[in-house]
């Protein structure tokens, strides 16, 4: 079977003062190959923990993770990551960054160069390939990060707020790029974001997580990502369902935040 199934993952760890944190409780999710899932939630709801477990950087205390029929136990090239920022290798040029994965695998140079060139065309950075990454703008750097991830041809792409540090205009352009890449490559993507709009625009599926303990609160299936593949994202935002959905999710997250604040007062 293809796809990613997350089977009742829990994660609990001890603190030095004897307390413990239940970061995730019984999270289950099935993701078919080629689905784009966006994950929303207030801070501390465990969404980054979930992503780190899927990436293989953290081990869950119980539950398991099955990708394409085998169990995930550690990081692997089949699951690529795109980080918020600062994960590029600044000692390498744009070309070398994009070619990092193939180089590590020992891909023949000609084949690697072809992949790199193709991806640089896709993200529109062909003219910058010999530049140092720190000479690029934030948006361009994230394009490099996307291309670097795609160069390895992973089955799943995990994005940890990849557009969080970009300005509004660049962010909109990058959202279109992500949708375009998703449609063209057919990758399974898990995207973590703080922006409700972004989650709605990009997520074919969307889960809202709740904190203490971290769990899945509500799940949606949305039409906007499919619309956005061909249409301008600003047009998609005018869709009659878009506004109400955004309000609904915002209210949900607001309620959770208020609960956290209230909880803190009780504790004090």
């Amino acid at each position, binding site marked *: 079977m293809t796809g990613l199934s997350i089977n009742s993952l829990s994660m609990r760890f001890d603190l030095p003062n004897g307390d413990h944190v239940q970061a995730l409780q019984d999270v289950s999710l099935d993701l078919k190959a080629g689905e784009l899932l966006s994950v929303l939630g207030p801070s501390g709801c465990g969404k980054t923990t979930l992503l780190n477990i899927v*990436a*293989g*950087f953290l081990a869950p205390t119980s539950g398991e993770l099955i990708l394409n029929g085998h169990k995930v136990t*550690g*990081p*692997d*090239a089949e*699951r*690529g*990551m795109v*980080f*918020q920022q*600062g*994960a*590029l*290798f*600044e*000692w390498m040029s744009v070309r070398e960054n994009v070619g*990092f*994965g193939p180089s*590590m*695998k020992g891909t023949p140079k000609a084949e690697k160069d072809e992949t790199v060139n193709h991806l640089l065309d896709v993200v529109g950075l062909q003219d910058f390939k010999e530049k*140092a990454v*720190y000479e690029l703008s934030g948006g361009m750097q994230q394009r490099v*990060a996307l291309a*670097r*991830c795609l160069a*390895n041809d*992973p089955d799943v792409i*995990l994005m940890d707020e990849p557009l969080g540090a970009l300005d509004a205009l660049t962010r909109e352009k990058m959202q279109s790029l992500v949708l375009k890449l998703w449609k063209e490559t057919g990758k399974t993507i898990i995207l973590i974001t703080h922006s409700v709009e972004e989650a709605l625009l990009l997520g074919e599926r969307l889960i809202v997580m709740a904190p203490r303990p971290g769990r899945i609160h509500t799940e949606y299936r949305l039409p906007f990502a499919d619309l956005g593949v061909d249409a301008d994202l600003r047009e998609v935002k005018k869709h009659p369902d878009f506004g109400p959905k955004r309000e609904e999710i915002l209210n949900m997250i607001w309620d959770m935040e208020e609960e956290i604040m209230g909880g803190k007062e009780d504790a004090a």
Partner: protein
Amino acid sequence: MIPLLMYVAIFVAAFFIVTKVVQGAGLKDYTSLKTVTFGDESAVRPNRAAGIISILTIFLMWGIFTGSSLLPGFLHAPGPYEGTTTFTYTAEADGQTDDATVTVVVHPREQATEAPEVDPGDGFAKNDSAAIAQWRTGLIRVDRNDELGRDAGATVVAINGEPIAPGETVSVDGGSVTLSDRGTPNFEPTKGWQMEPLYLPAPEAVWTRSLEIAGAGFRNFTLIEHLGYSLFRVVVGFLFGALVGIPLGYAMGLSDWFRGWFDPIVEFMRPVPPLALIPLVIIWAGIGEAGKIILLFLAALWIMAIAARSGVSGVKISKVHAAYSLGASKWQIMRHVIIPNSLPEIFTGARVAMGVCWGTVVAAELVAAEQGAGMMIMTASKFQNTDIVIMGIILIGVIGFGIDMLMRWAERLLVPWKGKG
């Protein structure tokens, strides 16, 4: 006190002249348009004119107070008295008094001069003469040729007609005369404001001596050899230190066992000044090359280990995670992520270590060495060759500065991504 006041005066005068005269002639760049400069560190740039005047002032002051031949004579501070002067003394014995003249020749130290022949004159007190070097004083045994000497009860009661008693001083032309406790006049020539070459030789004297030593050598080794030995020790000691320290630092940054094991050692050794190790190293390894290199190895080792360790800790975890997700093995992560990421830190450590090593080698050579920059100035100071000492200090400073410049240049060339992560 006077040199300090002069220095402050030049500082203030140059400030007013430069700011009034050159005002507005500078570059019209962005910073020049800032109105808030007090408190904005980025707007404070070294004033080039101040830098040039500062260096010139040092040489000017040096020249003024050493009577340098590089400066026109009118700029010199008053020098020590040189020439022939006379004063008279009045001796009293058995109720009678008699005057006699003392002729004193004050001569430069390096030029030996005999006391001149003088006519003894009349009376029981006879005329005397003496030769005294500049900056020195001389007891003048005026009674040794007198008919009635100290043994006969004669005493000096006046100089140039001014009454004087033991312990008192009378000014005379070209100096002053003090009567010693036993009644002998002691002539002290006027010293002026210049420094005695023994304490501070003139700039040109240092320069001539440098050329002389560069050609003829000092203590069986030429100048280049002395400096070369010091540099060689620094480079070899540093290389060994880096060769051991960097892998040790990496191990401490990558393995909790290594970190636990070596942390106490490194943290204890780091604050021990390498100079404090000199005695122990001499006991263990003697004063030869081995001892010096062990000392410099120890000086560089901890610095490099700590630099490499913090270089590893400085790797952003997202970079390591990204590399793992791109399929890199542990070794590939070491080679392609951790090492390049830690190079800027290692270069900073190397610069510090080279500076410490250079200071340590000079100190170690001061203590004991057959050759080297430190040995050269220490030996020279024992023989009061102040010019060699000053030359050595200047050369040590220039080389230390050169090493730092070289390291910065290498850093810019090899780790252009420093601070860009």
